Every structure is written in C-alpha cells, then in structure tokens.
C-alpha cells in the first residue's frame, strides 16, 4: 500500500525550484512507483522524501548555475539604464532610514493626492445621462439660486432669446402614488411639458416619452415612471406600460419607463437623495402657472444653440429679463450650466481640497528633494571620486536621477494602493454627503494622473540633487572630504530655501484649517430655532381627496394623533407639509391687504395638531391654531418674526390680513423664526396655515409627522410605527428619524471639510518640521569645527544653542510670513465655505503663528542640544 505519496511529495516538492517542480516531481514519483513493491512502505516513503530533497537541492544549485552563466553572457548587453537602476537600488538600500522616510513621505502624499483626484473627478465630471450636456443650462430666480421661476418669465425668455435652441419648464412636488392594493406612498414627482424629454435628448427604455400633444387641455393624463418606481410598483413587469396608476387620487395611464441610468436634472440638483420617480403630463398645472403670476415654483432648463457660450447667453437673457420685468433691479435670473448648478454645493469643497492636495504634494516633493540633497552633500566625496576617475557628468546625473526614479516608482505604487483604500473609504462614507450616486472609479485618467505625478515628482526631487552633485568641483570636493568638513554655503542656503517653502505651504494650509475649524465651531453654536433633540420626524401619507372630502383626511389624522398621544413618553404630536431643512421650498407671493408694498415671496407651510409644541417653537405674540380653525371658519394664518420685520416693516401683525393663493387670511399670531434651508441662512419669510383650512389639494396629500418625546425619543420609534398603522392601516410611515439628523446632515459636510483640511495641515506641519530639523542637524554637523572654536574661545554653551535656535527661527519666520500671505490668497478658494469668520481672522492668524513657531522650537531642540554639547578638545583634535 502506498503511504499517501502525493501529499508528502507535494509538501516536500515545494522545496524544488519552481520552474522544474512538476517535471522533477513526476519523474521521482515514477521512480517511486517502479520500486515501492520491493520495499516496505515506510522505507519507500523515506527514500522518496530523501530523493525529493536531494533533487530540490540540485535544482536550486543548477538553476543558480544557469543564472550565473546567463549574467555572464548578458552582462555586457545589459543597458546602462538598468545598471543605473540596480546601482541606485543598492545605494538606497545602504541608507535604509532615509529611503524609508522618503518612501513614506512620497506614498502618503501621492496616496492622498490620488484619492482626492478620483473623488474630484467623480464629483465634477460625473457622467450625465443627457445628450450634449454642456449646452444645457438652468435658469433660476435671483433671490435664491435654488428657487424656481415664474412660468410666464420662462416662456418669455424662451420665445425672445436668440441663443436658446430649446427650453423646458417643469414643476416638482411630492406626489402620492396609489397602487392596485390601495397602498399609497410619497414619491418625488414632476409635471413636465411635451418638449422635456426631447430637449434632454433621452428616450424611455420602454414605451414612449411624454409628447407635445399631451400638453393640450382635455387629453388623457399620462405618466412616465422611473426605473425605481416601475420596479417597486410593478416588479419590473413590462406589461405595466398601458396600465393605470393613481397620482394624488387621479388615474394616469403609464406610457413609458425611463432607463435606470436616467436622472432628472432637478432631482440631481435640489432633491439630493430623493430621485424623481414619475413624470406626468399636466396641462392644467401649466395653465395655472401661466395665469398665477405669483407662482415661482417652475424649474427652467434651456438648451443653448451650438455655438453660443454660456456667458453670451447669460448677458442676452439678463437683457431680456430687464425688459420683461422693468421694475426689478439687476438681473432677475441667474443662469448656470446644468453641470455647474448640480455641483454647486460641493464644487467649492472639491476645489479647496484639491488646493490642499496640491500644497501637500508640493511639500512632499520639497521634503524628498531636501532629503536627497542632504544625502548628496554626504556623498560629495564619493561623487567627486567617480568624476575624478572619469565618470561623465551625465552618468553621475543619470545615477542620481535613477535613485529618485526608484523612489518615485515605488512611492507611486504604494501610493496607488493607499489610494485604492482611500477611495474605498470615501465610497463607504459618501452617503450622508449626498454623493452616494457618484461612481468613484479608478479609470485611465486616474492612472495617467498617477504616472504624471510620478514623473513630476521624479523630476522635482531628482533634478535639484543631481544638478547639485554634478556641479561639485572635483578638487575642492576631494580636499574638503579629506578634512571631513565642507560647509558649502550654496547647498545650505538651497536647503534652507526649501524649508522656507515647506513652512510657507504648511502655514498656508494651517490658516485654511483654522478658518474652517472656526466656521465649524460657529455652525455648531447656531441655534436652528427648533428643539431638535427630542423631536421624532417621519413621513405620513394621506388619502388624496378634494377639499370637499376633507373629513376623510382629518378623521385619519385625528385617529393617528389620538393613538400617538396615548403612547407613554409622548408630549405632543403634529404635522407640517415640509419639515425645516428637508430641502422643500413651497413658496408663493403674498400681499397684505391695505399695504402698498410689492407682494413678497413667502414660504407657506400647512400644519396640524400641536406642531409648534412638538418642535419646540414658541408663539411669541397672539395665539396658535386651535381646533376652531377648521373648514368653514374664518381663514387664519400665523407668520414668523422675519415676516413681521420684512413684510410688515416691524408693525404689529395681529389682525392684519394676508392674501395667500387667493384666500384672505387674518394673521392671529407670530412665531419664532426657524432656519428653513440650513444653518447658514436665516431670515426666511414664512407663513403657516391650518391644515384644515387648506384648499390646495396638493398641500394636504402628504405630511410630515412630528412627535415630541419626554426622554429618549429613539426608543419610541418602533411603537410609533405601530400606533400609526393601527390608526391608519395601509398607510405605512417612512423612516423614523430624530430631527437632529437634519442638523447633522447640515453639519456633515463642514465637519468633513474641517477634518480633512486639518489632517492635511497636520501632515504638512509634521513634514515641514522633519525638513527643518534635518537641515539644522546637517548645519550643526557641518559647523562642528566652527562651534568648537567658538566654545574654545569662551562662548557659552547656551549661546551656541541659541545660535542654532536663532537660525531655525529665522528660517521659520520667513516661511511664516510667506505662509500667512499665501494662506490669505488660498482662503479665497474656501471663502464660500466660511461662516461667521473673515479671511483675516486674528485668532486664526495668531494661532497659526504660535503653532508654527512652537513647532520650529521643538524641531530645533535636538540639533541645538547637540551643538551645545560639542566637546571642543575632541572636535578640534580630529
């Protein structure tokens, strides 16, 4: 019986030189099978093992012989470049610490740079699913870049402008979709005109798009679904086309399904993570938009003619706008390419981070150059000897360049690996920053960027030392080497210059980090106007019924409120159409009866239950809504303090009458302001109406339920779901979130900016400190003799140490001055991200100065101590 030779053989066979392993092993096994019959199995196995080991030994010996013979015959043909590389590799291996320092510096710097490159590329050049996207631009009203326009204005501009090829306006809202089983849910949707899909140059994956003939009043209402909606409601069944679906209670025939890759231009820009799920034909909406001059809720996208630049179009459209609205001052529109409009929020961040990356890469290169120059100084003798023995300058430069080529190559390789990890990390955390849809992929351009970086790094890091080394005068160098001294003024001042550059760059980054850090602190101290810690927020869908059947909705709401209020720990419950900071706008022009002022764009919110108690917004004057403010009672409204200040000029609001969407409402109370669009903007004019008096059907079809808990709100979330489903079967609520989440989302990006820039600044300060301390150490080593003479002539040790520290502070001071100026220039990039802090903030400048000087003192501590500890007798005898 064979005692499992294959396993034994395979294990031992690993010792055989790889190229021959299989053949050798198979021959040995043949031998083994040929003779194992004659011996006992144990002995046979032992013999096989011995044979394998012997063969393994032989295989390596003979393979080495073969290699040696190869080298002998090929050595002469080996290109001098390869020889340079091999020589450089051996030279680098002789100074492992310096090599390691340079490699770590390079790979960390390049890794960070590549990561940021991929992220920036993913954000700024994300592929867009529209034809010729660079000719698409977005019009928005000047008041706030993300506000829509009047439909009339849009149509005037489209008709009069010579630079517009096609234009489309559409209107987005939160629709209530009802499926066959009567289950409803809220979906971001858009009412579009027939030219919408054609202007974007997209075709549906199934069926047809919405066509111009669907725009006529009285036509059958049709809808095009997004891929996600189609999957969710019809499980991807192609026969869905032709069937019907209810939108806000009215049936629409499904005519098409968009491909999964299609993105609505507006959901990309405005709704963030809420992709538009359905596009419907809605001639009545456009009809209303044409008649209602107060309605600015339309998105407007235009396609420019082929040869028209965005700037030319902008000035032409501004001129038209001034003609159609002669009373408004300045341009009533802003115009931006769609790409720009869609990356507006992150663009500045990306540029700021790219600037930080460029600074860091420069610092990395300077630091490596510094290390290599320092090394070049140390081996002047060696190079001088080689020059004396007949090496050409070119050969010496080539050899030194080869060293930096190896460093750059290995550094780029490791940096690429780090970047792979970095991009993976970015992908993992991208969700909260509204970037989850972006593909952060390594593509050819990233690899090309890496190669370009490696080349630039090689040239930057290699040229200076190579140039310096080869300029050495042979005789002087050899003489100096003999005396083991050589304070070359030129090379020292070059290295000092590099440290000055490094310090300046690090200092400039520190200024940015300080400014962003202070902005973050300021943001953290902003009060949103509502109590976010104890309010739970979720979405609630209500049956879409006309105002006449309001009782169907209010019965449901009453049941929900009753159930929720019975839950232990619940203090108040209410609803609002659009929760603050949820991104919804929902505004209209409101005029005051008896006032001569222009109507004012005002945010309108319909509320029900104890909404203000639930979010902790106090009523400061008058009263809140009561149960008496219902259908049929005198229409009332509440306004916020900014409304009083801006619309009423600070006069008393109580008893004044406001015209809201055609209804005259008496203002019965004033509430505290709430930040509606984020922490950085305040003073939005807001008016609240009672839900039960809201005649606009779409204002009532869905709501946000807000519940205030006495303590530990998140504990309530499961029982909240139960309570609502018992009161309203078939109307599941959305995700239950703490109101604080809305704030956290506001803070996420500034926090990330501050952290990333601070990380860059920290790394760069550390690198600068390493560079400074290296230069000082080198200076001390070169001036040992001078220092010894000073000491011998009576200088005190502390004065010698002060000499070194003084040199350090001198170098740092110049870098600091340059860095503060550079930091001020660089802060122009981040100025859009700053909040409550000016670019010349004294605390930031003071802090940067102190930090840099302290770092310089620490960096000079060891060299200064060494200078002070020089033994004059021993040094001078040497």
């Amino acid at each position, binding site marked *: 019986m064979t005692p499992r030779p294959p396993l034994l053989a395979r294990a031992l066979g690993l010792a055989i030189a790889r*190229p*021959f392993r299989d*053949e*050798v092993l198979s*021959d040995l096994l043949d031998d083994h099978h040929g003779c194992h019959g004659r011996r006992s199995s144990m002995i046979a196995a032992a013999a096989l093992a011995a044979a394998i080991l*012997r*063969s393994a030994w*032989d295989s390596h010996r*003979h393979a080495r012989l073969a290699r040696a013979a190869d080298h002998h*015959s090929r050595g002469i043909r080996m290109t001098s470049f390869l020889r340079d590389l091999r020589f450089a590799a051996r030279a680098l291996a002789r100074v492992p610490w310096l090599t390691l320092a340079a490699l770590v510096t390079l790979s960390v710097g390049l890794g960070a740079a590549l990561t940021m490159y991929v992220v920036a590329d993913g954000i700024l050049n994300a592929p867009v699913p529209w034809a010729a996207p660079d000719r698409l631009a977005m019009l928005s009203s000047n008041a706030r870049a993300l506000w829509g326009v009047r439909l009339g204005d849009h149509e005037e501009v489209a008709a009069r402008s010579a630079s517009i090829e096609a234009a489309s306006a559409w209107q987005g809202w939160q629709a209530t979709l009802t499926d066959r089983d009567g289950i409803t849910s809220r979906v971001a949707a858009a009412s579009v005109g027939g030219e919408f899909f054609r202007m974007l140059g997209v075709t549906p994956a199934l069926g047809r798009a919405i066509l111009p003939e669907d725009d006529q009043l009285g036509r059958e209402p049709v809808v095009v679904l997004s891929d996600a909606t189609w999957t969710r409601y019809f499980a991807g069944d192609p026969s869905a086309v032709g069937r019907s679906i209810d939108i806000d209670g009215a049936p629409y025939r499904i005519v098409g399904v968009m491909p999964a890759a299609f993105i609505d231009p507006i959901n990309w820009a405005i709704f963030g993570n809420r992709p538009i799920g359905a596009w419907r034909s809605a001639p009545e909406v456009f009809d209303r938009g044409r008649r209602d001059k107060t309605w600015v809720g339309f998105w407007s996208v235009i396609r420019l003619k082929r040869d028209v630049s965005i700037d030319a179009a902008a000035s032409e459209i501004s001129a038209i706008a001034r003609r159609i609205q002669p009373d408004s001052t300045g341009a009533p529109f802003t115009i931006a390419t769609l790409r720009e409009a869609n990356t507006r929020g992150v663009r500045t961040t990306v540029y700021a981070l790219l600037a930080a990356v460029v600074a860091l890469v420069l610092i990395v290169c300077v630091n490596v150059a510094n290390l290599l120059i320092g090394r070049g100084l140390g081996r002047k003798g060696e190079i001088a000897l080689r020059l004396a023995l007949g090496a050409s300058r070119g050969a010496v430069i080539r050899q030194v360049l080869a060293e930096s080529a190896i460093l750059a190559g290995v550094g780029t390789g490791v940096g690429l690996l780090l970047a792979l990890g970095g991009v993976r990390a970015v992908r993992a955390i991208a969700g909260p920053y509204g970037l989850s849809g972006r593909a952060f992929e390594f593509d050819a351009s990233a690899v090309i960027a890496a190669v370009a970086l490696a080349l630039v790094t090689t040239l930057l890091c290699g040229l200076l030392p190579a140039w310096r080394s080869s300029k050495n005068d042979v005789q002087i160098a050899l003489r100096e080497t003999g005396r083991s001294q050589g304070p070359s003024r030129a090379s020292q001042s070059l290295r000092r210059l590099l440290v000055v550059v490094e310090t300046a760059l690090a200092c400039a980054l520190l200024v940015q980090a300080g400014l962003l850090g202070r902005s973050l602190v300021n943001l953290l101290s902003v009060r949103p106007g509502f109590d976010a810690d104890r309010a739970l927020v979720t979405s609630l869908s209500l049956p879409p019924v006309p105002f006449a059947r309001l009782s169907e909705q209010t019965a449901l709401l009453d049941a929900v409120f009753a159930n929720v209020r019975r839950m232990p720990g619940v203090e108040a419950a209410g609803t609002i159409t659009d929760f603050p900071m949820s991104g919804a706008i929902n505004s209209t022009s409101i005029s005051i009866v008896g006032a001569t002022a222009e109507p004012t764009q005002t945010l309108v919110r319909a509320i029900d239950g104890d909404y203000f108690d639930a979010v902790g917004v106090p009523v400061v004057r008058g009263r809140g809504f009561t149960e008496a403010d219902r259908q049929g009672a005198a229409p009332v409204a509440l306004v916020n303090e900014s409304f009083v200040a801006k619309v009423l000029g600070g006069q008393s609001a109580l008893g004044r009458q406001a015209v809201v969407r055609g209804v005259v409402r008496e203002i019965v109370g004033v509430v505290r302001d709430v930040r509606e669009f984020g922490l950085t903007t305040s003073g939005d004019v807001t008016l609240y109406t009672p839900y039960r008096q809201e005649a606009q059907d779409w204002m009532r079809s869905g709501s946000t339920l807000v519940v205030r808990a006495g303590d530990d709100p998140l504990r309530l979330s499961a029982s909240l779901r139960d309570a609502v489903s018992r009161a309203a079967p078939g109307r599941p609520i959305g995700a239950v979130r703490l109101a604080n989440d809305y704030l956290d989302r506001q803070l996420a990006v500034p926090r990330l900016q501050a952290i990333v820039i601070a990380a860059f600044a920290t790394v760069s300060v550390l690198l600068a400190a390493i560079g400074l301390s290296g230069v000082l150490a080198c200076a001390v080593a070169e001036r040992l003799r001078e220092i010894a003479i000073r000491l011998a002539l009576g200088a005190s040790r502390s004065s010698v140490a002060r000499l070194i520290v003084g040199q350090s502070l001198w170098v740092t001071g110049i870098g600091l001055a340059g860095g503060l100026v550079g930091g001020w220039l660089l802060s122009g990039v981040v100025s859009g991200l700053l909040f409550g802090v000016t670019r010349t903030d004294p605390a930031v400048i003071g802090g940067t100065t102190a930090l840099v000087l302290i770092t310089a003192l620490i960096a000079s501590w060891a060299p200064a101590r060494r200078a002070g500890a020089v033994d004059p007798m021993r040094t001078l005898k040497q």
Partner: protein
Amino acid sequence: MPRQSLGELELLVMLALLRLGAAAYGAAIRAEIRARVGRDVTPGAIYPTLARLEDRGLVKSVASDPLPERGGRSRRVFELRPQGLKELRRTWRQYAVLAHGLEPALDPERALGAKKP
C-alpha cells in the same frame, strides 16, 4: 557573445541525447547516464541543465502526446539541435586534441591491455 564550453553535466546530458537518438524524456536521459556511467543524477539536476541547454539553443523540447495511463498529462521530449551537435563536436575535438598521446596516462587499463599479447 563569448562561447562557453559545455560543463560536465551538460556534456553527459548531450552525449546521452545523442545516444538515445531521435527524442528522449528527461527520465530516459537519466536512465542512460546511470546505465552507462553508473552515476545517479537527480531529476533536480537534469531539468535545470536541459533548460539551460535549451536557452543556449543547443537542445529543443517538444510536448509529447499525452500519455493515457498518466491521466492525460503531457510530458516533454528533448532532442539535440544541429547547433547542439556542432557544439558537442567542438567540445569533443578539444578533448581529443588535448588528450592525443596521453592515452596511457588517461586510460592505463585499456592502453596496457592493448600492448599485451
């Protein structure tokens, strides 16, 4: 490219190949050397040597038809190239020229035997 004389094992392998004729497995070469010279050369030495000869263009190898009894695994057969034969002749001539007249010292048994009546 400087010419390199054949090493001892290389010479043995090439002579065995010449003796075996058309084509031979590594195992057959080993067996031939063992049978003629009485030296047990391990496969671990044979294959690197063959690889080296192949690199130098003296020997070529061809994958043989898969052997049915070995689970279809294909093995290599080796063959002397004309260049290899030339090299073998050159090396042999060197030995012959140098050894000319030294037969009594190099091979006393045969030399003496020839003189015996």
